[in-house]
């Protein structure tokens, strides 16, 4: 009880001597403040950026595999060009082999893409036509905004129904409601039955200028009316391409089977394809890669920020050492009047830890301003998870303890008689 009382008093003593040197204490605490603040800022920005990319990856589905047909590079495609037709990509036979051989397939969907122009009255807009089955809505992670997606009835009856992306609908119809309107597509009339949001990821190899202009139609209709050929107009020359399956999305039982399935897909496709005319996306692998990348970035950010904390710590040690020298006589007086070495150590440690704690807490308080400021100024997201707050704070306290310990020990080791003689 008596001991506790004394410790409490020594803490107060440490605090009051800080109050005596307000400016010096304030400046020292500021060093820590910026250290802590920069740790928080860096962690928050990194956290936000990685959260965003993780989020977009998760949207592709961590239990999915995406296999896209891509046009092989020019030198590879030369050989495949027979009679002016470029043949490439995933074939129906590939599709069958994959679905039959992959372990743990829950659902799958295949889509076929052609390049056409959509027409409404006088407006003619180049676009990507995607023949899709009803489950593409879900597996392709599309968000229905209005109307409906491709239905089973559309498929069996080969109906001419179309689902547009919101942006394409706006370009074709302006402010008018596009639902139930008719557009012309590849010489056929299609009735608009639904609208979807712009998907976060469509297909590999979709020209970026067309990525916004997507039309989904029933895959049966697509096969019937348009076939596998697409005509590419490049300036004056025309070329024809033939792709059987543009995209295959396979959903697997769980995340554990995904990586194994990816391996099987890679080996099967590399056996049947002698050129790289396909692209395999494994969201889970990407997620893990990003996580690893993020850990690396975190380490780097942390190191840089820690250095600034360290600099703050050195500042504190410097101030505390100066304070010990300046107060040598006071230390001698206290020792002569009964203070033990331990009492002196506690007094100086309290000062150092108080400086860093106050600096650290202020840094954390200012840290709350990081996400809004970063978002408005840099247009990148920032997040403040608990660790972002606690870790820099603990670091500050530890820095305070370490940087205060050496000066405190030095103060305590002074010979009382020598200290009393000090001018």
């Amino acid at each position: 009880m008596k001991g506790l009382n004394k410790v409490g008093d020594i803490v107060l003593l440490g605090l009051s001597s800080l109050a005596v040197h307000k400016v010096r204490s304030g400046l020292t605490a500021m060093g820590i403040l910026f250290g802590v603040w920069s740790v928080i800022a860096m962690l928050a920005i990194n956290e936000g950026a990685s959260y965003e990319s993780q989020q977009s990856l998760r949207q592709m589905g961590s239990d999915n595999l995406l296999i896209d047909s891509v046009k092989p590079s020019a030198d590879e495609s030369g050989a495949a060009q027979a009679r002016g037709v470029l043949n490439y990509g995933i074939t129906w036979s590939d599709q069958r082999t994959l679905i039959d051989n992959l372990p743990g397939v829950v659902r799958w969907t295949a889509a076929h893409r052609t390049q056409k122009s959509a027409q409404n009255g006088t407006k003619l807009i180049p676009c990507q036509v995607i023949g899709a089955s009803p489950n593409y809505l879900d597996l392709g992670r599309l968000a229905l905004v209005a109307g409906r997606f491709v239905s089973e009835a559309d498929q069996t009856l080969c109906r001419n129904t179309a689902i547009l992306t919101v942006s394409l609908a706006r370009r074709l119809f302006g402010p008018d409601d596009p639902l139930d309107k008719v557009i012309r597509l590849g010489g056929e009339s299609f009735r608009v039955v639904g609208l979807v949001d712009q998907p976060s990821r469509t297909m590999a190899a979709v020209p970026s200028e067309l990525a916004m202009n997507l039309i989904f139609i029933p895959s049966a209709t697509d096969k019937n009316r348009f076939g596998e050929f697409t005509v590419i107009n490049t300036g004056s020359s025309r070329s024809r391409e033939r792709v059987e399956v543009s995209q295959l999305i396979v959903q697997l039982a769980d995340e554990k089977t995904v990586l194994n399935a990816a391996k099987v897909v890679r080996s099967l496709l590399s056996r049947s394809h002698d050129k790289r005319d396909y692209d395999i996306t494994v969201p889970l692998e990407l997620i893990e890669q990003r996580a690893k990348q993020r850990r690396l970035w975190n380490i780097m950010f942390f190191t840089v920020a820690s250095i600034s904390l360290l600099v703050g710590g050195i500042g504190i040690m410097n101030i505390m050492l100066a304070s010990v020298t300046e107060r040598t006589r006071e230390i001698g007086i206290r020792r002569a009047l009964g203070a033990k070495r331990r009492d002196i150590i506690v007094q100086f440690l309290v000062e150092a830890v108080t400086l860093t704690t106050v600096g650290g807490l202020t840094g954390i308080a200012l840290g709350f301003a990081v996400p809004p400021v970063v978002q408005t100024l840099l247009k990148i997201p920032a997040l403040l998870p608990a660790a972002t707050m606690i870790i820099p704070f603990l670091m500050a306290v530890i820095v305070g303890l370490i940087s205060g310990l050496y000066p405190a020990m030095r103060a305590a080791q002074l010979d009382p008689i020598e200290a009393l003689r000090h001018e």
Partner: protein
Amino acid sequence: MMKELVRLESISKRYVMGRTVVTALDEVSLSIHEGEYVAIMGHSGSGKSTMLNVLGCLDKPTSGRYLLGGLDVSTMDDAALSDVRGRRIGFVFQSFNLIPQISVLANIEVPLFYLGMPRPQRHPRSSALADLVGLGHRKDHKPTELSGGQRQRVAVARALANDPLLILADEPTGNLDTRTSQEIMELFDDLYRRGRTIILVTHEDDVAGHARRVVRLKDGKVDSDSLSARGLAESKAAQT
């Protein structure tokens, strides 16, 4: 006869300075009883301060035995010595040695603080002590706002705070003019009358004249140890 408070048995203090050895105290033996008022005199460098520091447990003798109130303090470690200083010794220094940033009362409370006395008890005690030394009207002043004499009064009050066995003063009037010296010495006289044991170091005969016993040091040895004029008068009065 009063209880023996201080017993020095062949106390030596030597400083090794490179090749030479300075003997500040040379086999000093001395006994001081409760209630005595002793002046330690001698030329500069004769070992007065060294002796006072040993007596005050600020310094450890190189050899010899020191019993303070029956307790052997010559073998104690730093923490135990700090404790003895805090409980049994009251120091008054030539250069006052007050802590400049804190008030008169806070200065008087420093020894109480390290004794672990709770704040509510410290305050009335330091306040009473300030009144005792005649500084009732300066309690919240900082030492820098006080005259030399007033500062030394604070130091005396502080020396009394822990109700010490022994009050030690090293040239307490060394930095004061004649008049204030006189006032401070009256304060010591008063403490003596109240039964305090006082040992003070001085090289001024006037100051030493207040004590009842005078110990003269020469080259670290006790040169003489005798009653002062007042001491003689007192012992005569006691005999008749």
